[in-house]
């Protein structure tokens, strides 16, 4: 098993503090009007938090290559789902409900 080092309780604590801060920032950012950037910022923060959880809490950072490839493949598959479904609807000339 390839190991850079083992995660320590201190590291877990740092990560959870980052996650808490990220949650507060998400909430505060939602109260500021940034137009089109609001959902982008919200999702960017959510993705960052998810990456932290996957890498450190789920130990993917310390895992073998098979696990890492599997995780990346899974998210890639999800992107196919979202992208192709969306492009179908957008390509139809999406009308906002009258």
């Amino acid at each position, binding site marked *: *098993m390839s190991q850079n080092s083992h995660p320590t309780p201190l590291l877990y*604590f740092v990560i959870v503090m980052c996650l808490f801060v990220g949650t507060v920032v998400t909430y505060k950012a939602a*109260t500021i009007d940034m137009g089109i950037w609001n*959902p982008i910022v919200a999702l960017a923060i*959510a993705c960052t938090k998810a990456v932290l959880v996957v890498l450190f*809490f789920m130990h993917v950072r310390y895992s073998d290559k098979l*696990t890492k490839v599997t995780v990346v493949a899974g998210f890639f*598959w999800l992107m196919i*789902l979202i992208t192709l479904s969306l492009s179908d609807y957008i390509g139809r000339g999406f009308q906002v409900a009258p």
Partner: protein
Amino acid sequence: MEQQKGASTFGMWVFLLTELMMFGGLFASYLIYRLKFYAAWEAGSSSIDVHWGFINTLVLIGSSFTMAMAVWAAQKGDKNKQVMFLIGTMILGAAFLGIKGIEYKAKYDECHIPGHIIGKAFNASGGCMADGKVTGDIAKEFMEHQAEIHKPVPEAFAKQTADQTQIFFSFYFAMTGLHAFHMVIGLGLLGWLTLRASRGEFSGQYFTPVELGGLYWHFVDIVWIFLFPLLYLINRTHG
């Protein structure tokens, strides 16, 4: 043992990816309907109490921390700490579900449960009464909000938007409901793990079940990390 642990971890990840695709389907259709009915999404999101959602997010992230600590303690072979952290995770998970119950009850009181399946029929245009006064009037709130930040909208449009929030709430209950269902299963798994841990079954040599249980719990946490901004924070730019 290493090979077995590698195989178990791989298998668990493949399972989690099937779960990701299941939630992914809901997220994709949420996205498509959000683009089509944005006003209704905004109106519906504004009527959910963001404070409970915020607290729940912190609770669940905290439970991920205690879960990670439980895996660490299992690896160390420290029986007492394992059990302590597993029970801590369960308590936080139960707190999350309790707060969810409070939120669902609030939606029930405001007649925002879609259709007419459970008691009160869906009504977001001022026809819902609770404690003798009108509640859950999304049409009215939408009109006030639009007049405040944008420009006034006709009442007919506000009423139509309020009706369309039924779709939003269908997504709200489907996505948070499926998530809560996963939490309940997770609590069951944690209970089983706690029992095994209290019998001293885990050590540095063998702690795979705790690790895999941790993977499941963190996955459920990640789903919520995305649900919170997408459902609760669509437009919170009130004055």
